[in-house]
């Protein structure tokens, strides 16, 4: 998902017999659906896992602005341009809500940004694919934001208060993103044959990477099992992916587009869509930094941070000068 392969630092799920009194009390609060707040006692592994998860999520929002920002100057109308700018601005906002939530756990903003730029912390694999045509912007809103909603709605109920509250804000805004994407696709699919071909081409390229967003099956993952116990992961990767396919396949049919999977078929017996094998080698290559755009994304982010340094310094100097002047005048 936006946070993929989040490690807990543990080698097995902790059993009740191994827990200290504090840990038992902590788990009891989680089991009773009482939110954990920043100043409450929490196991170190819970704190560290959440920092990793929220941070990855935040970085994904920020890096996720790049593929879409690529089309702001080339949006096909003034209204589409204004809408895309509003969407990209929302993504910045989502990143900021999440950074704030992570900071309540005792990690600094500068540290998180340094870790991203040093490649120590990942962001979602999906943002390492290029946006080649305007139809890619429609597809991202429809599929990528659609997949994000799938993951984020359950997270509104997660055990950590600041993360849950940030997710509530994000979810309120995310639905606009998905609809604006679908609206672009609808317009293209109702347009000329050439426009419809653009839409199909974008779907062909984004479908499999979108399914990869949910991460490999985690049915046997110790980390996912522990995160589930802590209620910072509410549904398994496979459950979320199945929901996504079930929801999206009829939407593609409505658009008159073909999902690029010969094995995709509705299974009457299960009530779900069956689908083909995902190329996990590709996923792992992208995660390791060898996707189509990894280096370009990191270069652009780092450059933006460095280019903004003088603004941050000037604003600090201005604030200090003004505070000093006010202190002098008050004396």
């Amino acid at each position: 998902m936006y946070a993929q392969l989040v490690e807990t630092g543990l080698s097995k799920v902790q059993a009740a017999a191994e827990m200290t009194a504090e840990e038992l009390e902590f788990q009891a609060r989680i089991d009773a659906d009482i939110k954990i707040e920043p100043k409450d006692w929490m196991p170190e592994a819970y704190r560290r896992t959440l920092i990793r998860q929220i941070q990855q999520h935040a970085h994904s929002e920020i890096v996720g602005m790049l593929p879409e920002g690529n089309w702001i100057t080339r949006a096909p109308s003034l209204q589409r341009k204004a809408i895309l700018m509003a969407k990209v601005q929302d993504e910045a906002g989502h990143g900021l809500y999440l950074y704030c939530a992570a900071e309540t756990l005792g990690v600094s903003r500068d540290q998180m940004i340094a870790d991203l730029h040093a490649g120590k912390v990942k962001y979602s694999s999906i943002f390492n694919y290029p946006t080649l045509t305007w139809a890619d912007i429609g597809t991202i809103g429809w599929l990528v934001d659609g997949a994000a909603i799938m993951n984020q709605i359950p997270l509104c109920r997660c055990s950590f208060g600041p993360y849950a509250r940030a997710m509530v804000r994000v979810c309120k805004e995310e639905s606009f993103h998905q609809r604006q994407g679908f609206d672009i696709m609808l317009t293209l699919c109702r347009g000329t044959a050439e426009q419809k071909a653009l839409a199909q081409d974008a779907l062909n390229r984004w479908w499999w990477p979108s399914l990869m967003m949910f991460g490999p099956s985690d049915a046997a993952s110790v980390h996912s099992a522990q995160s589930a116990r802590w209620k910072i992961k509410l549904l398994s990767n496979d459950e979320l992916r199945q929901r996504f396919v079930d929801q999206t396949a009829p939407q593609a049919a409505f658009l008159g587009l073909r999902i690029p999977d010969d094995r995709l078929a509705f299974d009457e017996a299960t009530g779900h869509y069956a689908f083909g094998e995902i190329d996990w080698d590709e996923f792992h290559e992208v995660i390791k930094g060898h996707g189509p755009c990894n280096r370009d994304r990191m270069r652009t982010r780092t450059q933006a941070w460095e280019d903004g340094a003088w603004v941050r310094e000037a604003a600090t100097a201005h604030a200090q000068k003004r505070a000093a002047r006010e202190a002098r005048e008050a004396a």
Partner: protein
Amino acid sequence: MSEWPLWEVFIRSQHGLAHKHVGSLHAPDAEMAIKNARDVYTRRNEGISIWVARSADIHATSPGDRAALFEPANDKVYRHPTFFPMPDEVKHI
């Protein structure tokens, strides 16, 4: 350079409710904190008034004091009007 200080943001919505904590952000001073809060927290008419306060200036109860502070209210149910049953015949009370 060390990062900008952290500010807590409070927004009052249109319907006469009190300012409510919505999150935090970094800014060099109060003026910039308010400008940033407008962009980060009120993109969809969420509010008509913004307060910002330096996070370092906020003093809070600690979770360990929860019992001492809040449990005394538990056995004072007579503070709620429903503690006093009223006869059905008695109206407007």
